[in-house]
């Protein structure tokens, strides 16, 4: 694990975050957007682990580890809930295109 400097790992997690943000900004399909959110959460979790590993000189702080595990659990919950919402939206409006869902803008 000592082979590469920390910047490389941080760049990896940042790029995961950036890809997630790109998906959020560009894609129309709600399912893809949910995937984008999941990707961003993964990027954040990865950053936590990397920084903790770097600070702890090779060992990850158990607190951080548990936080990340909880975060992953919540992320899966968010995914499940959003997919349920997507199903409801699809049944009600017959579309998965987020640009067509702008009822608040009358």
């Amino acid at each position, binding site marked *: 694990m000592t082979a590469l400097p920390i910047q490389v790992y941080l760049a990896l997690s940042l790029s995961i975050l950036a890809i997630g*943000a790109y998906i*959020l900004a560009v894609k129309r399909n709600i399912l893809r957007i949910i995937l984008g959110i999941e990707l961003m959460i993964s990027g954040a979790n990865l950053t936590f682990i990397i920084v903790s590993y770097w600070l702890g000189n090779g060992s990850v702080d158990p607190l951080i580890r548990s936080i990340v595990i909880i975060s992953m659990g919540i992320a899966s919950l968010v995914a499940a809930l959003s997919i349920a919402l997507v199903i409801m939206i699809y049944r009600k409006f017959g579309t998965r295109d*987020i640009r067509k*869902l*702008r009822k608040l803008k009358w």
Partner: protein
Amino acid sequence: MMMYADLLIWLVPVIATLLSPIVAKVSRNGAHALSVSAVGISWILALSMIFDILSGNVTYYPSNVTLGSIPFAHRIVWIDLTSLIGMKLSFGILIDPFSVFMANVVSFVALWIFIFSIGYMSEEPDIGRYWFLMNLFLSSMLLLVLSSNLLQMFIAWEMVGLCSWSLISFWYKSKAPSPDPRFSTEGEYNAHCGLKALITTSFADAFFLVAIAIVGYTTHLTMGTPTFDFIELSRNFSWLRKIVQLGIMPIFSLFLISGPFGKSAQFPYHEWLPEAMAGPTTVSALIHAATMVKAGAYFVGRFFLIIYTGATVYGLSVPDGVSTFFLAAAYVGAFTAFLAGTQGMVAKELKKILAYSTISQLGYIFAVFGIAGAVLLEEAFFAGALHILAHAVFKALLFLCAGAVLHAVHSKYVYDMGGLKKYMPVTYFTMLVGALSLSGVPPFAGFFSKDLILHAAMHFETMIPYVLLLVTAVITVFYTFRMIGLVFHGEPSEHIKKMNEHGHHIHEAPLVMRIPLIVLAVTTIIVGFFFEPAIKFIAGEHIVFEELGHDILSFVLEVFSSELILVSAIVILTGFIPAYYIYIARKADPTKIVESNIILRALYKFLVNRWYIDPLYYKIADGLRGFSARIRKLQTGYANVNIVYMIIGFILFLITLILM
């Protein structure tokens, strides 16, 4: 001496507020009975407080709370923020003659308006919402007048505003054609009127809140802890001196008076009140007579008491700048009285005539309170307080009569009425009593209070308010008798003839509506004679019941023997004769007179357009709306675009964080 009277007086209507929607689901009569009995209890408690104050012995609690002399405030710590910002917010009930006086006015007038509502709202399906809002309105107003500190008063103040908003737009579902071409249905128009009231008063209140914050800040600087308590503020004027020292006294005064100006519909915030007629007439009566618009006048009176008590009881020297507040009240009040009076002369709707007269009469109250504060004249303060009482009674009476008329005629335009005298004799005579009182004819209540106001106005530094108020008095007589003439005298209009042909005969109001009219009319006649004891009560003097008759007699003799009675007579005749000639005897056609003269025609157009102030406000509002419509294009509604904005914002935030 009733236990917990100071809390129960406003808590009983709160309980009725919470219960009435539920009770209304079960039984309409149950909801009526609940609300009327709640306000009845409030009135009895308010009455008992008068005797508590007269006996000088206030004990509302078991022995552990010993309460001293009047004025006293019962305070409890409401929110303790000592550890955070070093202050405690207290919740308190202030018992002093002025607050008890106001509580009596409010609850008495509200009682008869509530009873009238039983008849007036008999066909209303949504009675639960109606009673919920009316009870909440009443309890907020009682809480407002009994508040012991500014912050608590402000909360009640906003609650009053909120209730008025929802009550004005009460019939928001109505599908009838709109009286205003800008809206498609009457319901939309009503909702617009309610919103207009809310926005105007809230705009004024924003300044008021800033002024309250300044009070908190300066008391924090001088006394160590922020305090809003009326009694504390009057004990120590260091906060006022601090404001002067900071050089913000003029701004502070104008901000502080802005709230009352908005609430009491004084210039430049007066435009909401004529539109507030969209609600049920009982609501208009409550807004005009007891609850909403009297709040502003009450605050000016309360602020006068703070200054006056400090100056006389505690012997403090009043800083010079304070008079800005009162000078603004005096001049703006007198000007508003004139402004609204002139508009009342040409109004076409019955309730709008009354609305303009309310603005005008409130102008009198503001002017006299302003004079009271500017020259520290106690008599002027009494005159204002008594005009609050007199106006509350006769304006409630006039509005309820108008309600009875509208109920019978099914039209709100005065030109659709006429000749109602023979159909509705009780309404006619009670409304005549109200009209005589409004125009200041002796010996009705309005005469005494108007006389006292004009008397006090002569002590002011300039004669501008006096002259304006005198001219307004003439105008008042004119438009009052124009209203009476158009509604009750002359030939029945086409509308009424048509109604009679279709079998809708004009009928007198039912008994439950007539009784409040008669009670209020009798009160209007007799209350004027009790002004001398009322003055003694507000002044905190001792009243000897055996000398009551003597007091009344000497007061009446004094008023009738002063030279002002001549002025009054001239004023009444100047206004009455043209009104009688044109509108009651119908000897001349007003439209022809106006048409024939170019100056009169221009004047008429100017007045009908409300001095072009209302159109100007709409222009400003439309301009702002156009600006917002352009800004709104930024909001595309696309989730993707919003995310892009979010990311940009986040990056900007990060950049600032790094740069700092």
